[in-house]
């Protein structure tokens, strides 16, 4: 019971981090937020009712390494290499984003209540946090134009799906996690290459410059 209680405390930090990510323009802060979310999502199975075997323990630890160290470090390296500190290219202002985020958190809570998901594997906040992460990631993808922030938003969305998926598919746990990992690892890696190419072809990472192919 205590473990589940701790899980909900961790998830409330994740919810706060989403709020924070909607109101910041600093890239390093954004990366740290996605690291926090990635770590909480990776350790979630430890706190749930399912018993842990040695295999799943090793798997969880490797996911933690990749989500918590490898991917953020590689994005951080790109940011350092390009010498960008702030991402100021936005479609929706920070105050409006923050207001939307608050609505999103409330809406996610109501939705999980409506679908009787307030006690999902013993955790009260798990489903609503997952919905907030998925929808929040989607919102940031539309509201921000900086390519790095868009990649981070995509990772936030993946974190949400992972949070929902990992405990659900206890039987097929490995394959689901493997899939998400492949997605995040390879997807982000290729996006990283694209980021460098955008930087080389244009002066900054504002995706509004990619407008040659409009009808």
């Amino acid at each position, binding site marked *: 019971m205590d473990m589940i209680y701790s899980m909900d405390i961790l998830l409330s930090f994740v919810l706060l981090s989403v709020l924070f990510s909607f109101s910041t323009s600093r890239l390093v802060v954004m990366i740290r937020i996605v690291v926090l979310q990635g770590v909480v999502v990776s350790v979630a199975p430890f706190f749930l009712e399912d018993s842990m075997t040695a295999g799943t323990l090793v798997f969880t630890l490797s996911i933690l390494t990749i989500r918590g160290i490898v991917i953020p470090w590689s994005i951080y390296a790109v940011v350092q290499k390009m010498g960008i500190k702030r991402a100021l290219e936005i479609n929706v202002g920070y105050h409006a984003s923050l207001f939307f985020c608050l609505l999103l958190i409330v809406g996610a809570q109501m939705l999980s209540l409506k679908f009787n998901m307030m006690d999902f594997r013993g955790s009260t906040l798990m489903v609503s946090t997952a919905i907030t992460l998925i929808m929040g990631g989607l919102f940031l993808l539309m509201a921000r134009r900086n390519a790095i922030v*868009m990649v981070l938003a995509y990772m936030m969305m993946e974190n949400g799906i992972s949070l929902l998926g990992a405990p659900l598919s206890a039987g*097929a746990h490995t394959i689901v996690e493997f899939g998400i990992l492949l*997605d995040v690892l*390879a*997807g982000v890696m*290729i996006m990283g290459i*694209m980021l460098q*190419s*955008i930087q080389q*072809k244009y002066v900054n990472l504002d995706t509004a410059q990619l407008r040659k192919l409009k009808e």
Partner: protein
Amino acid sequence: MLEIIFLVPFLSGLAVFFLPKTAGRVWMVLTGIIHLLLTARLWINPQAAMFGDYFRVCPEGLLSLSVISLLFLLISIYTTEYLNHSHIRHENIFTGSLLLFLSTMTLVTLSDHIMVMWIAIEATTLTSAPLIFIHGTPRALEATWKYLLICSVGIAMALLGSVLMTLAMDVGHVDIPVSFSALTGVAAQLDPVWLKAAFVFIFVGYGTKMGLAPMHTWLPDAHSEAPSPASAMLSGVLLNCAYLGIFKTNKIMVAAGLGSFSGMILMGFGLMSMLAAATFIIRQTEYKRMLAYSSIENMGIIAFGTGVGGIGAYGAILCLIHHSLIKSSLFLTSGNINAGYNTWLIDRVGNLAGRMPKTCTAFFSGFAALAGFPPFGMFIGELLIIVGVFRAGHYPMAAVFILSLCIIFAGFSNQIIKMSFGDAPENLPNEISEKAITVCPQYALLLTSLVLCVWMPDIFYQTIMDAAKAMGGGF
């Protein structure tokens, strides 16, 4: 061992990265031949998979695999000549990625596990991205960025749908492997609410990759910016792979008695795609983008036919096969036109019949086949869908379907006739010789489509019927 069919191109693709250029081209064609032989063996002697929980040959998968295999071989033959004048600097990356792309698409057709299918479709995005970016121009960069981002988000939605499918099992107290075949068997026991939610997310996810409107925005860019052989693969077979994901999920829906729910979604998005394509084809200025929009139209037709069910589902599968054959031939031919005129603009192309008669024959026949002229397969497929939709009593939808077909036909034929028989613009580059190798693959593709209309082997017909029957389809 079934898995060998996707392992061969995978290992070949890796090997090509380290081979000299000419050897890489030969290696690619050889792999195409081996792949086609392995696929043909499946028709004669069905193989069991080593990992039976994950892989299985199903009728729709076998049909798609056969189309992929034939197309790849012909496209790889064309590519060997195309690479001579295409200014692709990293040729090994191109040929290697084409082979890895073939491997991942083969994986899609053979996957039975819902997550393996998802991983395979995701892998097709990753292996095809270098093909679109290969020229490294700002336009290619933009197309690749859009492709990666929009398709990744779409695929993430499909992942969420797959996760919700496990929730539908959980709530319905079903404890079986998460495979399409097993789920279809116990579909009635799955929780209907979560099953519907799963279908919606999977549909939106794979529908993005299939190019259905309004999630289609990446498609015209990616298909027009990729080199022609890659465009032919993207349009001819990748879209089919995404469709397979939707088709198999729809099978579960039909088995669960929720076919009308999924059918309405398929028909709605199908019509929306056709209308979107009609709008853009009419005022299109580039011929390769026009072909890309035509792919959106055809995917709309296929989704619509699948949603109609019955005889329409049979028509949809016919359209799927013939669209692959015809559209890939048109994309290859567009590469020839670009080589002859050095432009993608419709206004800068004219008198194709006089300047490049062999190319014009392939281009115009491809257009006639795609526009639904008899006796080509698209005509039969579309006719069956129209009969199906009338039988189902959806008259307003039938009207919109026929209207869209007419608008697209008018727009398409106007542009093609202008290019083929209109006056040639001034200051054209010198005429280039049309080598047999640059037109024969297109002729072979069109001929295959034509032969399948007048003579279809029994086993092939039966396989199409088996695929359609799973959705209440057939005559």
